[in-house]
């Protein structure tokens, strides 16, 4: 009955639309493209006015929800600029490390160490330096925030690009060489495409990490100075300080909206577009799709732009590089001055490093016995907290992750939800969680574990889901055919199957937990300071008090602990996973 009623309506509904020329649809897209371009331009002008305006470290943060779009735009811009910087750095650093064997031996271990230095320890140094550089403009403090986000997101991208370059198949490289690709052609047709997928996924992770640090560094105290930048993070902190629940909810809603929007308008299209860079022999049946990408592809204005501007520019570059390459094909030997320049730069770097080490040693010798004691005890306390957070995280995520991974119908519902939950930066939630903790009456000693958990459990969950999905159906069927008890099933199939993925998740989570300890163990809230014993608290306190000796000492200890744990525990676990628990197909 119902169907009969609906059918004519559907035909009628389809009729007039199908008569409309396809062009009007593209006009709509064009209109959207122009509007977006215009609003982007407007936004840049407004922001530039504020950035180059007078220096004002303590912008008054309004709790009016109508200010939220403005604040969100400010935060977004910081993230964007930081990301562009990271990408540029990644391409240069990864390229040099992959092609210069001598540089590689220094650059890659350096990357490993830089990765384990807690980002927020850079905060005071970077901020003071930037403010000193641009004392009269807002630009200084903005650049400080941007650089901080940059340090939070750049390392894994650089690492991904480097390892992609190193793993380009030999025959593809040889094809590029035998067909005389010049530098530009090799870069655009071989290297970047090959690295694209890894770069895209790492970019997504990095930007998510960027939100985490942005929230923390939009509002902080440094010695006697109180820095505030207009943005979502400072809005949430202000709202939480005032105990203003509606504002908090508005802030969080905006945050989620921005993240979902970014996902739909940037990441989904980019992933769908990057699908063509996948190295696969046959076309996969379920390629990622994006409505936004399809929408944009319909735009005539963009197509014209591509035809008139992008393609000729590309052709010009190609020809330019090809001719230059042909002209310079003869001279293979590097010129003498280049060799000498390299040597001068290297020896300068050595001098600078030596100087820095000496100065750092001098600073460390200024630490009192009490401060040393505090650092060591703190390291122990934070270590325990990280372990507890990882344990709790694993305890709930393993069963839930396996359940989701084994059940496609559940996965369809749970995965997007978990993705949204995971993409809300934990630092944005800290003030709220703290508010609840204070009302309930738990101390920050326990509370900080909750805060760490909030930031890191998702890494474990997503990896466990991926691991459970990767367990072959044959093995599952075999285990039910032999009537394994559920304990046996877990022990012989599920746990070994998800182990490699679990290790990957735990490594990321452990790094994240150490980083989070800096914000989690020490909190200023409504003119009061909540703190507990811990290395993160020591770092935060040193930042607050402007005690750079203590900051350096505790940062070095944290980096050392993280590097040691990586070497002693995670690397072994990785090897075990690779040797024993890899499911080969």
């Amino acid at each position, binding site marked *: 009955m119902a169907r009969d009623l609906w059918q004519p309506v559907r035909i009628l509904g389809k009729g007039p639309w199908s008569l409309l020329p396809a062009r009007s649809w593209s006009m709509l897209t064009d209109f959207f493209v122009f509007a977006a371009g215009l609003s982007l331009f407007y936004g840049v002008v407004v922001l530039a006015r504020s950035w180059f305006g007078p220096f004002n470290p303590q912008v008054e943060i309004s709790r009016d929800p109508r200010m939220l779009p403005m604040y969100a735009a400010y935060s977004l811009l910081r993230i964007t600029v930081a990301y562009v910087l990271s990408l540029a750095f990644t391409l240069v650093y990864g390229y040099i490390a992959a092609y210069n064997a001598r540089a590689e031996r220094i650059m890659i271990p350096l990357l490993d160490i830089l990765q384990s230095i807690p980002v927020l320890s850079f905060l005071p140094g970077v901020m003071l330096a930037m403010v000193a550089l641009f004392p009269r403009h807002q630009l200084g403090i903005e650049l400080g925030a941007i650089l901080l986000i940059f340090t939070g997101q750049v390392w894994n991208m650089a690492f991904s690009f480097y390892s992609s370059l190193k793993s380009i198949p030999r025959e593809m490289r040889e*094809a590029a060489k035998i067909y*005389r690709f010049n530098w530009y052609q090799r870069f655009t047709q071989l290297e970047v495409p090959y690295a694209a997928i890894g770069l895209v996924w790492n970019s997504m992770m990095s930007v998510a990490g960027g939100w985490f640090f942005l929230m923390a560094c939009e509002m902080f105290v440094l010695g006697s100075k109180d820095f505030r930048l207009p943005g979502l993070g400072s809005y949430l902190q202000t709202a939480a300080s005032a105990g203003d629940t509606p504002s908090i909810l508005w802030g969080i809603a905006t945050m989620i909206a921005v993240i979902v929007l970014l996902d739909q308008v940037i990441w989904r299209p980019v992933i769908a577009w990057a699908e*063509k860079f996948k190295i696969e*022999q046959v076309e996969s049946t379920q390629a990622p799709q994006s409505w936004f990408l399809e929408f944009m592809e319909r735009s005539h204005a963009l197509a014209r732009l591509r035809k008139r501007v992008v393609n000729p520019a590309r052709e010009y570059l*190609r020809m330019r590089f*090809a001719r230059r390459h042909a002209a310079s094909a003869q001279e293979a030997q590097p010129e003498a001055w280049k060799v000498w320049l390299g040597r001068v730069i290297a020896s300068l770097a050595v001098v600078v490093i030596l100087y820095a080490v000496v100065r750092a040693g001098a600073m460390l010798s200024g630490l009192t016995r009490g401060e040393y004691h505090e650092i060591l005890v703190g390291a122990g306390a934070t270590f325990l907290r990280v372990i507890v957070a990882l344990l709790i995280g694993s305890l709930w995520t393993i069963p839930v992750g396996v359940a989701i991974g084994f059940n496609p119908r559940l996965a369809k519902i749970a995965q997007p939800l978990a993705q949204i939950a995971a993409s809300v930066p934990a630092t944005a939630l800290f003030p709220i969680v703290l508010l609840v903790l204070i009302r309930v009456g738990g101390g920050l000693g326990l509370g900080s574990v909750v805060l760490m958990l909030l930031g890191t459990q998702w890494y474990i969950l997503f990896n466990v889901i991926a691991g459970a999905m990767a367990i072959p159906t044959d093995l599952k069927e075999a285990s039910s055919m032999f009537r394994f008890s559920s304990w046996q099933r877990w022990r012989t199939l599920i746990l070994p199957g998800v182990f490699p993925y679990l290790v990957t998740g735990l490594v990321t989570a452990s790094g994240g937990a150490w980083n989070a300890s800096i914000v989690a163990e020490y909190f200023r809230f409504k003119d009061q300071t909540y703190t507990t014993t811990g290395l993160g608290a020591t770092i935060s306190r040193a930042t607050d008090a402007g005690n750079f000796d203590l900051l350096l000492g505790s940062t070095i200890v944290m980096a050392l602990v993280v590097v040691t744990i990586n070497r002693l525990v995670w690397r072994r676990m990785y090897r075990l996973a690779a040797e024993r628990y890899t499911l080969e197909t």
Partner: protein
Amino acid sequence: MEKYYKQPDGNRIQVIAPTDLEISPGKIIALLGPSGSGKSTLLRMLTGLSTPSSGEVLWHGKAMSGEIPHVSIVFQSFALFPWLTVIENVEAPLAARGLHAIERHKRALRMIDVVGLDGFETAYPKELSGGMKQRVGFARALVVEPEVLFMDEPFSALDVLTAENLRSELLELWLNKKMPTTCIFIVTHNIEEAVLLADRVIVLGRNPARIRSDFEIDIPQYRDRKSPRFLAYVDYIYKALTKPDEEMTAPATAARVAGNGQEKQRKKFQMLPHARPGGIAGFMELLADRGGRDDLYKLADELAMDVDDILPIVDAAVMLGFAVVREGDVEITPEGRAFGEADIQTQKRLFRDAALKHIAILRLIENTLHAKRDHAIGEEFFRDILDEHFSSDEVERQFDTVLNWGRYSEIFDYDSETGRLFHREDAELAAAAQEE
């Protein structure tokens, strides 16, 4: 020229023995050799992708010195760029040479048409079948009109029918002069392919690679695979490949010479063929069932196996004294017959006896384990020994084979956790003795 790798300890791993080779236009030249014999290394030196350790490659009489000459390569893995469409892939080498867009497009279209791919210009490689992908590889290689077209096992990633089809099309293009190249140099391990296509065949021996035989095939094209002359060439090449120690004479007389070659002094550690004991046992059982003697080529054909798959097994059987190879025929020995007809436990015992008798490295392991008090020793000890004889990749493969053979025949046990080889019974006895 020659190629070797220097080890940190000053030892040299010789990959290619000093070799002299000349290529002249107007011919299809096939370079044949067992896998791992250094064919690809040789090809890469000829194309300028890799430089010889000593000696030089002359291009039109002039030393190449790191430049890439005007040549192309068709790769085994196709090596197409998956993010470029068919036509973009074919245009890429032209863009590298600074040709304008319109000219690029025109030439690429023509070449795509020649290889029979028109209509697929805008497809991505992943939408194509293996044979079509390799057609794109051909088009990309030919579009620059190379002087020499190098092909590195171009058909071995394809299924039998597709490969056959492409081969005959290649030959047709070449014979009808539709191919803008003056010379084709094809690297292959497929004997029949070489005899079918080539005007000249170069057979490589291995460890290190050296030219075993270099001769012309004087059968006019198109060749009949069933003709006696064709089969004589195939048999001759089989012999050159399977009897690495025998002096090779020119193929015309080879067919008539009786093949009772004298065995040369065994090298201290032979290079073990990478065959599994199970495969060797299966092969011996089959050979025993078939009356103890069969044509290798026929055998491979009937088993629908590739040369690369069956040769290591035959090599292993010969090395263990289970079989001998004569004139492309493989013949079972009394030991081989006993082995093939035994039950599993006896097979293990016979394998053990043969291995200890013929395989130096296994004998060394047995003696070492016997001599040590705890009857166990770290794998590094034996790896170091192998290191002096083989390249690092080959050491891995050699060691894997040693493990396979030794564990199968119960010469030793291996604990992958600790990386130790041990003799289970002896070790248990020793432990018990210590407790007492």
